[in-house]
């Protein structure tokens, strides 16, 4: 091939290449988001000043800042963000999908008990990770995770799709029903006293604030041993607690 022919080809191609280079470039050129998520689109190869037009601000809000578009997803739907410069217009398509949810958001189960977590609105592949496989076993099938308690303790399951991460705390209890043996946190347990003895035992029927752990525990036991519990509401009430619970209550109320 002779030189003039090569040149002629170049001359022919140049306008095309030059035209392609004229419009601004956006990266990424489309976005898939969930409500509440924020993202940034970079604009490059800009000629002159940029203007931004948003076809649906209810779905996504977009703010142009320098050569960046900050996008916030507001509601499910789609919006086109059109970026115009001196040489042309380029469009970023924003698709807002419902966020993946996992129900329930926490689990408590006994050893060998099974429970299921249901995933709604997943995007792409679902991945499940388990912080402690000695406590909990998991298996994913479609959009359902079966969780089995293996040993008493806690684990956190992390469920991810392409857009959202959800954490589900799991508590495995040693008890599987029957008599109450589980330990309970003193504060919540002792708050059962507050309706009649005031917040933190500050008074109503007998004031409990200021009593020692031993005093409170001994009184509770005295009531619990009262055979004639239908003549005194406190004697009746205390029948429903285990000894471990009474000790936890006394310990908490002595130092709320």
């Amino acid at each position, binding site marked *: 091939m002779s030189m003039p022919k090569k040149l002629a080809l170049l001359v022919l191609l140049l306008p095309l290449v030059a035209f392609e280079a004229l419009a601004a470039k956006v990266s990424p050129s489309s976005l898939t988001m969930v409500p509440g998520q924020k993202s940034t689109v970079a604009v490059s190869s800009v000629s002159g000043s940029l203007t931004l037009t948003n076809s649906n601000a209810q779905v996504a809000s977009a703010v142009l800042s320098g050569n960046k578009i900050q996008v916030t997803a507001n509601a499910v739907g789609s919006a086109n963000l059109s970026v115009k410069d001196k040489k042309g217009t380029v469009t970023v398509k924003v698709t807002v999908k419902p966020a993946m949810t996992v129900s329930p958001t926490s689990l*408590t189960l006994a050893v060998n008990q099974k429970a299921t977590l249901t995933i709604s609105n997943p995007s792409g592949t679902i991945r499940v990770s388990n912080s402690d496989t000695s406590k909990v076993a998991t298996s994913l099938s479609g959009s359902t995770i079966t969780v089995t308690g293996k040993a008493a303790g806690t684990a956190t399951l992390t469920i991810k799709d392409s857009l959202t991460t959800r954490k589900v705390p799991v508590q495995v209890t040693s008890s599987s029903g029957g008599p109450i043996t589980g330990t309970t946190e003193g504060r919540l347990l002792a708050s059962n006293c507050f309706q009649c003895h005031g917040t933190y035992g500050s008074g109503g029927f007998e004031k409990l604030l200021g009593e020692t752990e031993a005093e409170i525990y001994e009184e509770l036991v005295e009531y619990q041993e009262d055979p004639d519990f239908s003549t005194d509401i406190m004697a009746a009430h205390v029948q*429903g607690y285990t000894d471990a619970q009474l000790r936890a209550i006394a310990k908490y109320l002595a130092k709320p």
Partner: protein
Amino acid sequence: MNRRQFLEALSLSSLGFMALPSLVRADEEDIASALFPVPTYTGISGTIVIVGGGMAGVTLAKYLRLWGGTGVKVTLIEKAPSYTSNIMSNKVLTGQMTLADLNYVYDTLKNHYGVQVVSGTVTGIDSGDQTVALAGGASYGYDRLVLAPGLEFDLLDGMEDAKEYDTDIPHAWQAGLQTQLLRDQLLELKSGARSGDVVITIPKAPYRCPPGPYERACVVADWQYQNNLSSQVIVLDANADILVERDNFTAAFNGAHGYTVDYRPGCKDLKIVDVMSRTVSYVDVDNKKQNVTAGVLNPIPPQRAPQWLADAKLYNPDAEERSVPVNVLSYESTRVPLVHVIGDASLTTQPKAGHIGNQQAKTCADAILRLLQNQPLDPAPVTNSACYTPITATTATWLSAVYQYDAKTGTMFIPSQHNGGGAISTSEPSTDNYKDMQVWFKTLMADTFT
């Protein structure tokens, strides 16, 4: 408590064990209304929106701040400017209390606990967006939403408009203007401006405050007796028997109020035949249709969680559900994540009443604070129900039950160590119980509103 458990309790107590010395009780004046400070940032942060300013909603708002500290932002949405207590509202009927005595405001919640109290009506929730919308266009975002909306009242068969409850046949099952109307109608019986019997109808359980209708029959009967009225209180109960404190109410209906109360269990197909003449019909236990015309008609309607909760898919009326299934470790809906329901609108094995609504709220507060920190829930929460019931103007009974969590069934149950798994009630009404009732009420309201 069932009959067998009651008899066991009786035989146990009649063996002659020495009773405990009578215990020191506080006088009403001693009830502390101590205010405890909201701790500064505890490391927990979150935005919680509560809908409903009754017993459960207010307790939750208070305890989220008291236990969670200033990092937990709490907004409470309520349409009324203040709360009127349902508890003790039967005493308005007898003139022993006024509605003003039962009025509780949200000032301490706002000014001391730093809860944002918003006056408004919810129009819907968006569980994907995690927002709740109010009439007028405002919208609040949440990390966790807790609904404590109470109950809505069905129209009874034969009725055309719920306004008939406001103008002619008050149910007065939510304290307020209908309570005053019922009081005024009773006064007309006394003045002779109207005549006839008082008819109280009781819906099939579950309904709000299980002993409440029987209590109302007792105190109205006592008021009629005290005022030398010859009219009766006819109780048309859709249930097959008295639901709670059976022995105490049976004794009252046959003894103290034996001439005044006409208790009819197992009444089916209740219908309001005519609102103006206060005529109802029902099918009795022998399957015979009966008509009763009342001087004062007080129909207590069936109750269910408000319709907008069904619209939000929290419960399904098409599947015969009337309240919201929840996980009782957290009161989170089993259907809609991040939305919790406490108090009367939740579906649990526990009674629908203010005292236990207060404790459900504390369980929910503890659960939400743990969830905000990605911690597991308390695996064994305990709740309790207690109530005092006036039988006359000077005597009262009480009922107590403690609920533990059964991990196998995921429900709350009364454990066997508590009277064989049943509630416990006092062996007889007394004036001491009546005094204790005032202490209980004031302390419960202080734990909720102060």
